């Protein structure tokens, strides 16, 4: 079961189990999300979607807003900033599509910059689950709180979930290759016979600065805009001579359709690309 179908199931259960929970959608996912008195589909009106989530939170509800990444984060970005952040109201934003799941749909449906702009707003917890089980864990935790949480779903996922929070060390060594969310699968394949360390990170904000004790050499592998958390890694390593290299989706406009696998390869985020980037620097 994909992250997306797991989310739809969990959202339905949450609506049944907790009368504080409300779902706000803007046509996307309406067929999969349950028909429920507290599921408000506002039509193709994303500014309203976030404003309504804020108004529900103002009255003590726990709103969940959901759409494709560009339409839940970028189009209503000022609503996210002001209606939720500035008003100090909580909500769970759940996006689908990640950076290039919608490869065939083109640039309008892709948002590799979403985490960078969400990370520019204070008070958000940002999860990049790499497996449906990880999605379930952070979603359930978010339901139990009143804070601001962004969960970025992807059709790319790892073979198995990783247990544990923060920076999870999977293998010791240097450089330490930090794989974010669904990049873990190709990262493990790329590094299977390399003398490097591997760590996993799926909650990127707040950033686990203290987990980098003793680390001096980091390769950061992110499934979105390259270097999104490079500044955080640099801050974590700022008291020692250190080296940081980032792999991710390049900034340049990428005018190709095709499949997610083709985009992954073009960005060097497949196993061969990650391996080449690491070995070139060993």
């Amino acid at each position, binding site marked *: 079961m994909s992250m997306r179908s797991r989310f739809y199931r969990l959202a339905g259960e949450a609506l049944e189990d907790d009368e504080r929970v*409300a779902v*706000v959608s803007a046509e996307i996912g309406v067929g999969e999300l349950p028909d429920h008195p507290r599921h*408000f589909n*506002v*039509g193709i*009106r994303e*500014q*309203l979607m*976030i*404003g*309504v*989530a*804020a*108004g*529900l*939170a*103002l*009255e*003590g*509800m726990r*709103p969940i807003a959901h759409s494709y990444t560009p339409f839940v984060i970028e189009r209503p970005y*000022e*609503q996210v900033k*002001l*209606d939720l952040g*500035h*008003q*100090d109201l909580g909500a769970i934003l759940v996006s689908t599509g990640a950076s290039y799941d919608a490869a065939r749909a083109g640039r309008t449906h892709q948002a590799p910059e979403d985490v960078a702009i969400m990370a520019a707003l204070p008070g958000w917890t940002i999860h990049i689950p790499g497996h449906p089980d990880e999605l379930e864990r952070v979603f359930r935790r978010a339901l139990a709180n009143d804070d601001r949480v962004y969960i970025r779903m992807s059709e790319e996922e790892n073979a198995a979930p990783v247990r544990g929070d923060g920076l999870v060390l999977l293998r010791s060594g240097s450089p330490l290759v930090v794989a974010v969310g669904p990049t873990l699968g190709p990262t493990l394949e790329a590094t299977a016979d390399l003398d490097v360390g591997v760590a996993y990170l799926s909650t990127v904000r707040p950033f686990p600065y203290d987990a980098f004790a003793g680390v001096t050499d980091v390769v950061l592998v992110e499934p979105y805009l390259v270097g999104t958390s490079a500044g955080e890694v640099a801050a974590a390593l700022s008291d020692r001579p250190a080296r940081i290299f980032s792999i991710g989706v390049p900034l340049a406009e990428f005018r190709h359709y095709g499949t997610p696998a083709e985009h992954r390869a073009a960005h060097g985020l497949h196993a061969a690309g990650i391996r080449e980037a690491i070995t070139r620097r060993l």
Partner: protein
Amino acid sequence: MLAYDDVPALLTRLTGDEKHDWSSLSTVDVLWVLHDRVLGPDDRFLLSKGHGPAAFYAVLAAKGLIPADALDGFGAFGSMLGYHPDRTLVPAAGIGSGSLGHGLPIAVGAALTGRRIYCLVGDAELDEGSNWEAVQYAGRIGLSALNVVVIDNRSSTYHWPGGVEERFVLEGWSAVRCDGRDHDAIEEAFASATGERPHAVVAEVEDKR
């Protein structure tokens, strides 16, 4: 608690300006009537048009919702009262505002819980398309807990030919125009809500320009 006649003195405390004709503030009468006659203890008021909040602060102070002493520091570094309200500093403000077009969508979300909501917007604020996302949706679903008052001083550059209330009616609201200086007329305009659909009051005041 103070009376309407005490509001000018409070406004003078806000700005130090004793010569100003405070009755010219576009929102002062509607804000007074809302807080003096309309809002019940379970209702919520959201000021969406956060520009020029002096009248709002003065009315809140007159009603004992913020300390009158806070008026003296208007806009100062440590003040709870800025040129746009911040609800985390002034809980009585309901929401923080300033960027136009945010209050009405939030009001829709709050009204979906069944709470009666009153939201104040300006006629030029309605230029922002986010308002119309809210007006359309609230009208179609018959969101009767929602009440909007438009302060109409014809400050929108391109105007609303035929009256902005017609846009609300077209989207399924009840809407009424009233004299935004006549306290009884304002009260009556709010009271004319049907209880079956969202309600808009267009409170007409003097032209801004």
